[in-house]
């Protein structure tokens, strides 16, 4: 029996160009999320950066039901090493990558 993971994808826009494909940046984001959310919430959320879209945008995968926590946690992350102060804005949440990319292409072209 194949059990499909119930996940949500969040489109995140950064106020400065950031490369989330680098492991340092990714790990720092996870650490910050852990610091803001706490262990219990973070383990339920299981965040993972799945794709970088352009210079400022990336897609964060989280487990379904943790959308609210993820959106709120991203609001409180305001600094990154090397880059200094930075803002992460969650633009849209979707159940599939395809739908999110479609929305990203047509609506959130910033």
């Amino acid at each position, binding site marked *: 029996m194949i059990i499909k993971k119930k996940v949500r994808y969040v489109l995140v*826009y950064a*106020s*400065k160009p950031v490369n989330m494909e680098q492991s340092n940046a990714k790990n720092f984001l996870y650490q910050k999320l852990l610091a803001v959310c706490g262990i219990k919430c973070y383990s339920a959320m299981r965040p993972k950066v799945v794709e970088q879209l352009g210079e400022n945008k990336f897609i964060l995968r989280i487990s379904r039901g943790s959308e*609210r926590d993820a*959106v*709120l946690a*991203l*609001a*409180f992350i*305001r600094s990154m090493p090397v880059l200094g*102060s*930075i*803002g992460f*804005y*969650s*633009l*849209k*949440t979707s159940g599939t990558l395809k739908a999110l990319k479609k929305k990203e292409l047509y*609506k*959130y*072209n*910033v």
Partner: protein
Amino acid sequence: MKLFDIAFIEIEDQLANALGFARIYADRTDLNIATTKPASLQPNTLMDVSFAQHTVKNKNVIGFVAGSEAIDRKTISMLKENDKPLFFNVSILLDETRAIPAIYSFKQSYAYASKIGAKCSVASFARDMDTLFSAAQLIEIAKLIGAKEDTEAKSMLGLAGKMLGSRRIKREGKEASESHDN
């Protein structure tokens, strides 16, 4: 429902729309945000709530901004009587030392304000690009402060548009007439 935000800086409409807002009102162009008591009050002024007792009846003051300090119930009742909204300054939450007391005082103020039916809203009051919030984030912060449902949080974010909507039309009309003359 259209959502609005207030900031100290001007944000392009394209970015504002991408963040989920119909418009982000800017200080000096759309309204005046007074952090200290000015000698003369200009139209469409948002005052700090500490000056509420002296300026609540002034017609140029359209609302008040709440900081991290607790607001007493008398002041909130006074705002309700004069139909002046209270804006919670969310950018304070980004300051780690002031965040916890600010959330506590916002919760207390919002609980009493919603109980007596006073108008409340949340706004980022961003001073730069890094301290902005997206609409989804502000909705969640409104829920953190005490809004019970999505609709309640969204109506809080739509309040600035209801207050300043007419001004926006005037500005657009002015720009349109200028471009027409050219």
